[in-house]
């Protein structure tokens, strides 16, 4: 059916089409990056998310200055002590200062979650898009690897490898990344196979644009919305994955702490010592919310058809 129900409307009005007068771009042309930034900052939610994330980062970096204790200091005078002027957020059953642990745990979790999520997103985007664009044997081989890794019980391997490394958080990043990119790569591949048939991709090929360039300029940006969502969900999922690993005794090992281990310890004593659970819980929630807000803002900023981006 061809009923012309209303849709997005063009906003450039060029009533007078061919002009004879010599015309030049008078003002500085806005680059794509500047346009995206402008559209991103126009979204209130995105800015709020950015502010929350900024505060969290500041807290993780500078929070240690506000307490005399370090995360591994043990205060035998106050075991499981409620918040007091001495320990602003109380202590846990071993006498560790909760504030100091929260600062350190946030630091760990931020580094692990953000880097793992960023790495998996980048790898999955590139691998998926390249496989889709090149097609043929490359596509078959890459899909074979992806499908093989998807059926491997990665959680077990994760547990084994991270235990061997003695709970080193850097090894954890590598391992989580290595076993985390396949599923997204599969999704990216499926989307990119439909994009590679688009005329603008054909146009770029006929202009002599190189293959890698086409993938980077035309395929990946057009699945940007998906990647942004993947990234934000990935951050949250990594915190959870790391928590789960820590819970069964792998992942981050004591005396090192992460938000995951703190949540895990605090969950046992929610009723008797609620501060032990709520402090890391609030931090995880803030991290999740900020990521979701930034994700939404980025998606709208990157998507030119989105109305929330304004007229730029």
């Amino acid at each position, binding site marked *: *059916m061809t009923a012309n129900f209303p849709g997005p409307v*063009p906003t450039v009005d060029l009533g007078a089409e061919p002009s004879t007068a010599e015309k030049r771009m008078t*003002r500085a*042309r806005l680059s*794509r990056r500047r346009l995206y930034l402008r559209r991103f900052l126009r979204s209130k939610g995105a800015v709020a998310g950015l502010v929350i994330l900024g505060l969290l980062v500041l807290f993780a970096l500078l929070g240690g200055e506000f307490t005399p204790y370090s995360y591994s200091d043990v205060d035998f005078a106050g075991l499981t002590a409620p918040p007091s002027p001495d320990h602003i957020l109380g202590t846990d059953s071993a006498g560790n200062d909760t504030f100091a642990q929260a600062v350190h745990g946030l630091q760990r979790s931020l580094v692990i979650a953000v880097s793992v999520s960023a790495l998996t997103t980048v790898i999955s985007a590139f691998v998926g898009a390249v496989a889709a664009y090149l097609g043929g044997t490359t596509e078959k081989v890459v899909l074979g690897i992806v499908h093989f890794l998807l059926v491997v019980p990665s959680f077990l391997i994760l547990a084994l490898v991270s235990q061997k490394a003695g709970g080193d958080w850097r090894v954890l990043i590598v391992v989580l990344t290595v076993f985390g990119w396949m599923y997204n790569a599969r999704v990216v591949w499926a989307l990119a196979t439909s994009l590679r048939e688009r005329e603008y991709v054909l146009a770029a090929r006929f202009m*002599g644009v190189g293959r890698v360039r086409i993938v980077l300029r035309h395929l990946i940006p057009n699945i940007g919305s998906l990647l942004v969502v993947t990234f934000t969900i990935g951050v949250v999922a990594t915190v959870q994955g790391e928590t789960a690993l820590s819970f069964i005794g792998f992942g981050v090992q004591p005396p090192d702490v992460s938000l995951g281990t703190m949540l895990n310890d605090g969950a046992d004593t929610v009723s008797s010592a609620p501060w032990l659970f709520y402090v890391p819980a609030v931090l995880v929630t803030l991290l999740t919310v900020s990521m979701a807000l930034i994700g939404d803002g980025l998606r709208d900023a990157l998507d030119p058809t989105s109305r929330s981006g304004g007229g730029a």
Partner: protein
Amino acid sequence: MTPAAEADPVLSVRDLEVSFPSEAGRVHAVRGVGFDLYPGRTLGIVGESGSGKSVTSMAVMGLLPDYAAVRGSVTLGTRELLGLDDRQMSEIRGRELGMVFQDPLAALTPIFTVGRQVVEALQIHQDLDRNAAWKRAVELLDLVGIPNAAARARSFPHEFSGGMRQRVVIAMAIANGPRVLVADEPTTALDVTVQAQILDVLQLARAETGAALILITHDLGVVAGTADDVLVMYAGRPVERAPVGELFARPRMPYTIGLLGAVPRVDSAERRPLLPITGNPPLLVDLPAGCPFEPRCPISVAECAVEEPVLTPVSPDGEHAAACIRAGHIADGRVDGAAIYPVPRAPVAPAAAIPRERRPAVLELDGVSKTFPLLKGTLLKRRVGSVYAISGVGFDIREGETLGLVGESGCGKTTTLLEVMNLRAPEQGSIRVTGVDVSDLADRRQERALRRKLQMVFQDPMGALDPRLTIFDILAEPLRAVGEANRETIGRRVDELMELVGLDPEHSDRFPTAFSGGQRQRIGIARALATNPSLVVLDEPVSALDVSIQAGIINLLNDLKAELGLSYLFVAHDLAVVRHISDRVAVMYLGRIVEIGTVDEVFDDPRHPYSHALLSAIPVTDPQVERTRERVVLRGDLPSPTDSSPGCRFVSRCPLHPALDATQRARCVAETPELTGAGGSDHLNACHFR
């Protein structure tokens, strides 16, 4: 219009208004449409996209979504249709109102046989047992021209071609003898030879049922041939209504005059530039007071912006009405004797002065063939045959020349283009671009150097521009691809290009979504010109655009060709456009060129029976010519392209073939005809007997 006096109208629409909510405000898609439809007559509703013609038909059928606000009155006989609920409307739809949709594939359910679908249409409204319904269904399918209907009724929709599916849809629409048939762009998705068949079937169906027909289309040629009365719509309103002959002979509304001037004529060798209507149709949100066409109207006066004119009779008998306050001054396409639309200056190509033979060739194809394997099996694919997409295609394009490549869908036009654009050695034959044989290209550097000379403009102005790039980046891409890195140089070139195609360089930092279809196509053209190519390949560059916008693009292409000395390889299914823009034309059928020559030779004196039929199928925007000329309507559809047996591929549909004697017929089947011409002429055709 004699029957008007005798009969009562079967369908009467009064003050119909439809609006939709949208984020930008209420969209008033239809603003006061009124007409009377008399039994046995055909009303053509013409307009560009967004003019409200389809929404009008949906409102009549009661198919608008719930959120649409509909006001006014639609009476069928004596019954008011607006305000009926869906159950009541379902009683009427199919029985009293029949509908033919644009896309015949989407209008049929893929999982039932076509016979069963016709039976369903019959049994909903009539008390028929299964055998009687089946018998009636076969009769109906036979009536609309499905060959061997009894057997074919058991086939599924995907086993039919587009034209055959549309026949089935028509059979379903007339199954219950409706009083009104509504056909919404019934031939837009079809090839021109099939379009001619379908229009005939529609007329037959109308005559058979005695129904009145509402024909909605953007194609003025279709209206000229089939409609009795015409309603021209603009911005949700009828702006002119007249009997068809009167409308084409004496249009009184500047918009109608503009539309008629914007369409190229297939029957005219004259190369005057088309008359584009500047600007774009208004957005139907918060329309300002005054005539909606006023901003685009070349003869608007101050009063035009004050109040919106209503449809008022302009002829003594009241049959011809126009909504223009200056209609009284307009006669013969002129206002007070002066041309309404100034004729643009015709560009003169400097290359035209040099005889064709002395100009260098920019593209030479010789015996190019391409086959696609037919694979079978799920795990291990084995080749069970080949699709002969193109075979033995050869032509050349000289500097400053346009070659039009025409033919129905599936004839190999696009494959030919892609073979050229791929810059790879073809399976057979040779391709030379600006004298360089593509099989000699040794590395990517040489390939890139050749790509500079060869650029392409795509059909779909939405799909060909990456939505994530700004116009600047889109135009800079070909420059960067050929190794231009200096920002300053690229910036200057982008400004130049924007201006060359009539866009404002100030807008180069916007995204493609901010532009209308015509503007996007201009951007696509600008991108193709970025590297100063010698040859531009144009794949249906105007088929996605409205006629008034299309004219501007065609004129732009002609200007650019003259100004920059370009050569075009132009592929289009609209033969009128091809005639207007091409110097030479090649007609393709099933992967082979069947006729090639200068555009006037081929169009005025087609030799090959296929070219003859193809050309005669095109509707002309002149009711007098359209209704009196003799048409060759081809039977059937394209045969399968997997057959490689020798002989003429057109034999199954050839109108000449049955007239030949037995030995000649045997020759057609046994011997593949070569492209030959009389004497030394370069007007060649591939028929043994022409």
